[in-house]
């Protein structure tokens, strides 16, 4: 953050908190996603409802933000809606639509303890109260997210409802358009999508899907889950889409035997979900959505590598992300072709 940004942000925050004065002490760029920037702010507030030492996170856009994700304002609304539904999320405090303060719209949320790194989470036997307890809590959190149904408050009116074709077919059509826009034809992923089309389930419940509910996107301490993060892809869809994404083999960070996102058992995750939601998960149908998850991740990986290949963002990590795709293709074939 440059001096100008810091000064303008200080004034803006002082206004937002109705403080007599406000000082930004430390500000640190947090390692974030490819799409957003997160800044940890330690702030001293004099007067007003937020008087005292505050520990916040400011979330804004990277210059190369991808259009498919929600704006910060939309993410703010999603955090608020999630909180109302009882989901454990960092408290969303202030939103700023004015791009002149720091260069992009942003919002501020309370900073929450915990770690997110996938490889660390899946290695631990104790985080979140232990593997089974963690898997169960994550099931509960997802069930609370899925309790948000359309039509919802006008705050979420920016979310596109599924078409008459249903959520599975909408996703298939969208992923086909992504393949069409790619630089290389992809017959194996085409097969995955054709299989998904041939086996598409009838439209069931429509709920708020997080669309990136996975290990790596929640904060956890030794005691518990402290925040579900990264709401920029959320939208209306089939609840099994989220369950498939969370349990898909590609999201276990190498801990392949722990089917609940590399943390604990699938059954513990399902138990938490079913107890909280009062509904039973159609276990046979989850397999369909794990194929969907694998195809989707492959398409995201292709897009990420393309950012490097096209020259938009020279970055070795993006380049290497493309090389995840062959493994995902093998998973797709294993899941869809009789041996």
């Amino acid at each position: 953050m440059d001096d100008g940004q810091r000064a303008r942000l200080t004034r803006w925050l002082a206004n937002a908190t109705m403080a007599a004065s406000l000082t930004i002490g430390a500000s640190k760029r947090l390692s974030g996603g490819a799409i957003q920037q997160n800044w940890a702010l330690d702030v001293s507030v004099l007067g007003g409802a937020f008087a005292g030492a505050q520990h916040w996170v400011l979330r804004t856009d990277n210059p190369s933000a991808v259009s498919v994700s929600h704006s910060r304002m939309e993410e703010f609304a999603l955090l608020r809606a999630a909180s109302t539904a009882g989901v454990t999320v960092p408290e969303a405090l202030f939103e700023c639509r004015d791009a002149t303060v720091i260069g992009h719209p942003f919002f501020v949320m309370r900073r929450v303890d915990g770690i997110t790194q996938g490889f660390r989470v899946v290695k631990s036997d104790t985080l979140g109260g232990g593997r089974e307890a963690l898997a169960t809590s994550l099931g509960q959190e997802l069930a609370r997210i899925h309790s948000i149904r359309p039509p919802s408050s006008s705050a979420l009116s920016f979310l596109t409802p599924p078409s008459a074709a249903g959520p599975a077919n909408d996703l298939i059509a969208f992923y086909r358009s992504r393949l069409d826009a790619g630089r290389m034809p992809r017959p194996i992923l085409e097969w995955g999508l054709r299989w998904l089309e041939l086996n598409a389930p009838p439209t069931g419940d429509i709920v708020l899907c997080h669309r990136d509910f996975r290990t790596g996107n929640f904060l956890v301490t030794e005691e518990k889950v402290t925040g579900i993060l990264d709401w920029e892809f959320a939208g209306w869809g089939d609840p099994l889409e989220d369950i498939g994404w969370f349990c898909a083999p590609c999201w276990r960070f190498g801990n392949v035997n722990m089917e609940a996102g590399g943390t604990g058992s699938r059954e513990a995750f399902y138990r938490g979900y079913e107890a909280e939601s009062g509904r039973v998960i159609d276990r046979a149908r989850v397999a369909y959505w794990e194929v969907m998850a694998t195809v989707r991740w492959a398409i995201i990986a292709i897009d990420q590598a393309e950012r490097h290949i096209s020259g938009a963002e020279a970055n070795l990590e993006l380049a290497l992300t493309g090389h995840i795709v062959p493994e995902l293709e093998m998973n797709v074939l294993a899941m869809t072709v009789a041996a």
Partner: protein
Amino acid sequence: MREQPGYAGLLAAARNVLLETLLPHLPQSRRYDALMVANAMAIAMRDAAIPPSDEAEILDRLRGLTPDRAESERAVLAVLSLMVRDGRLDPGTDRHGEAMDGLRDLARFRAAISNPKVLGR
């Protein structure tokens, strides 16, 4: 005509220096970058080591699935993709099994370069 060691040999030697000589001296915060570089070099080495005949053989199998034996690699993959999408190689069609075998070979070929660990599973 080219001087030796060439592409593969140089990459292997350079990667060894990275892992054995440099990595132990890097701060913790730079380890991930170094491991990514080593991974990139390993992929490049495997890419360089693939016999062209292996690739040509798989491509020819896939070519055989296309109605007019499409010529270029790009054309083969594009026609195959379209056929799959249109349902012409669906389960129950004559050539479904052959197509799945071809796709499996293609997947294994690609994985052998990008991440051969998955071939063992």
